[in-house]
């Protein structure tokens, strides 16, 4: 229960009486129309939690798209070629088990000569745009903890942390006031579920907005014609403003008023934005868009581009199904058939539209898989060394950072813990991971907790 404090000066009172308030109202008046006035209010009002905010230093990237491969893709069979492993079949591995080379053929692509297996012929063509992180490691070899750590920086289930998209919104605000700043498409319901796009102890307006891989968001369809709904909304907002004006009213009422207006605008903007059927046929073909589960990731990639283009700060899309303890061979063939073409198409499309100039793309899983075999046709989890790749704003192109040992077992060079990855991503977005804090439960919290080193060796 909160106690009311009628004598405390509220932000509202301060704004009305302080000298800056006067100028602010004058500007709003000069700008004229109600819409411009509301917009000016949003941009000038420091209390608007979603207003665009100045980063700690000049950002190299303004938006992120995360292509999340849930379940942990075997990088040793896709984009992490290990010559020694290919020659060590049948020998025993450093941690026990039998070393098992990839059964897929690898070749080099582009000027950079990056290796890709035959499972990724399309992503291979983008090799010279990619920045590989080859020395990653994490803490927990179980999906529920590792997935949550990848998304929130901590696997500690006793205290849920805000997700990285929420931290970015908290630090940077949102560029498009008609859309949520953090959208997660096809999010997982396992492995922590909503925790992976939640705001935890950050205010709720920083949480991610989930959308299905069909582009569906619940309750987005207006229940009544626009004119009638506007009348109703005016009544609701009138009630809310009356409440906000009463002494001791919770400051949160301001947030409610903003959320209703955003919701109202989203009814118009979001369905059109997510309707990928309006894209030209050659674009649909390039991404490989089709109905059903085989086209899920292609649809998500196209939605991601549209959301990114509209200014959404953080977009995550997800392809599940990479946990190949069994059925590694056929499983990888099927999975890569779903993601190879659309991923390459997204990278090419972003580049062609100039979006890659200020967008950072991250591709990868919660951990990697072992160079040894599990059963007859599988690989078990590996948290000691694996790869992801980045592309776009602020990072070197056709570049490879760090390495695992010759068998792909353990990160030995350019080692990068999950906290280091987060520190580096925040840095690219113009945020100092040690300064981006939120006070909760008696201490300041960070996405990187008390660790994290920015790996500026990858910066362009």
């Amino acid at each position, binding site marked *: 229960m909160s106690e009311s404090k009628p004598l405390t000066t509220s932000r509202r009172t301060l704004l009305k009486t302080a000298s800056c308030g006067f100028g602010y109202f004058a500007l709003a008046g000069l700008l004229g129309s109600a819409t411009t006035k509301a917009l000016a209010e949003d941009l000038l009002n420091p209390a608007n939690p979603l207003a665009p905010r100045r980063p700690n230093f000049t950002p190299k990237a303004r938006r992120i798209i995360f292509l999340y491969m849930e379940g942990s893709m075997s990088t040793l069979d896709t984009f992490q070629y290990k010559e020694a492993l290919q020659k060590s079949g049948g020998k025993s591995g450093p941690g026990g088990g039998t070393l098992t080379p990839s059964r897929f053929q690898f070749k080099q692509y582009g000027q950079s000569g990056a290796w890709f297996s035959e499972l990724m012929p399309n992503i291979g063509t983008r090799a010279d745009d990619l920045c590989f992180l080859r020395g990653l490691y994490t803490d927990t070899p179980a999906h529920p903890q590792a997935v949550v750590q990848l998304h929130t920086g901590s696997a500690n289930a006793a205290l849920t942390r805000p997700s990285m998209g929420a931290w970015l919104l908290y630090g940077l605000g949102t560029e498009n006031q008609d859309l949520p700043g953090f959208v997660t498409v096809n999010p997982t319901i396992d492995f922590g579920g909503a925790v992976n796009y939640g705001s935890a102890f950050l*205010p709720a307006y920083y949480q991610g907005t989930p959308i299905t891989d069909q582009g569906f968001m619940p309750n987005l369809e207006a229940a009544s014609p626009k004119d009638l709904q506007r009348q*109703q909304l005016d009544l609701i907002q009138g*009630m809310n403003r009356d409440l906000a004006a009463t002494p001791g009213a919770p400051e*949160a*009422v301001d947030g409610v008023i903003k*959320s*209703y207006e955003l*919701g109202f605008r989203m009814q118009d903007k979001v369905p059109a934005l997510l309707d990928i059927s309006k894209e030209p046929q050659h674009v649909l073909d390039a991404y490989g868009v089709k109905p059903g589960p085989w086209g899920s990731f292609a649809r998500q990639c196209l939605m991601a581009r549209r959301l990114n283009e509209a200014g959404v700060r953080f977009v995550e899309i997800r392809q599940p199904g990479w946990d190949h303890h069994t059925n590694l061979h056929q499983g990888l063939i099927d999975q890569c058939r779903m993601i190879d073409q659309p991923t390459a198409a997204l990278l090419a499309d972003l580049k062609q539209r100039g979006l890659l100039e200020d967008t950072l793309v991250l591709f990868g899983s919660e951990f990697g898989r072992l160079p040894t075999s599990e059963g007859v046709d599988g690989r078990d989890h590996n948290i000691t060394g694996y790869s992801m790749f980045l592309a776009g704003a602020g990072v070197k192109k056709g570049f490879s950072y760090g390495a695992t040992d010759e068998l792909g077992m353990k990160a030995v060079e350019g080692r990068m813990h999950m906290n280091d990855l987060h520190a580096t991503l925040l840095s690219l977005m113009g945020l100092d991971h040690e300064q981006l804090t939120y006070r909760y439960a*008696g201490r300041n919290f960070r996405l990187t907790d008390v660790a994290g080193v920015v790996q500026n060796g990858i910066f362009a």
Partner: protein
Amino acid sequence: MAACVGQRDATTVATQALFMLNSPFVREQSLYLADSLLASRHQSDAERIRRAYELVLSRDPSPQESKKIRTFLARYKDSYSKLHETADSNQPHLVNTSDPPSDITAGISRADDEGDPPKQTIERAIQPENPKQAAWASFVQSLYASAEFEFVR
């Protein structure tokens, strides 16, 4: 072992706002209460408005609030009628105007029968049948959607 945590900010996000505006559940509940308010035929509009405030917000409306609501109801009813006249003249054969308004109440009460009601029943039940009912349901929904109803103070 005791955990010490800070006070959590009370916030509403856009998806929650959309739920309050568009979800079948909230619309259905609004229609229930609107029907119940309209069912007592001897009350004046001012008395119905007061009853709604008592039930939803546990307080009386101020005279200004009551007046605002009456203005809202009149304007909403008017706009609703106009929109539906247009719809009727466009598609005269699709709208059965001879349906008595009581049908809608029957539609809702079927939802109380044992077992899940068919989806069609729900969708029918949350479409108001006449301008007056639409206006009252919209007003009740506004009370449910208000910050005053949503927050514990």
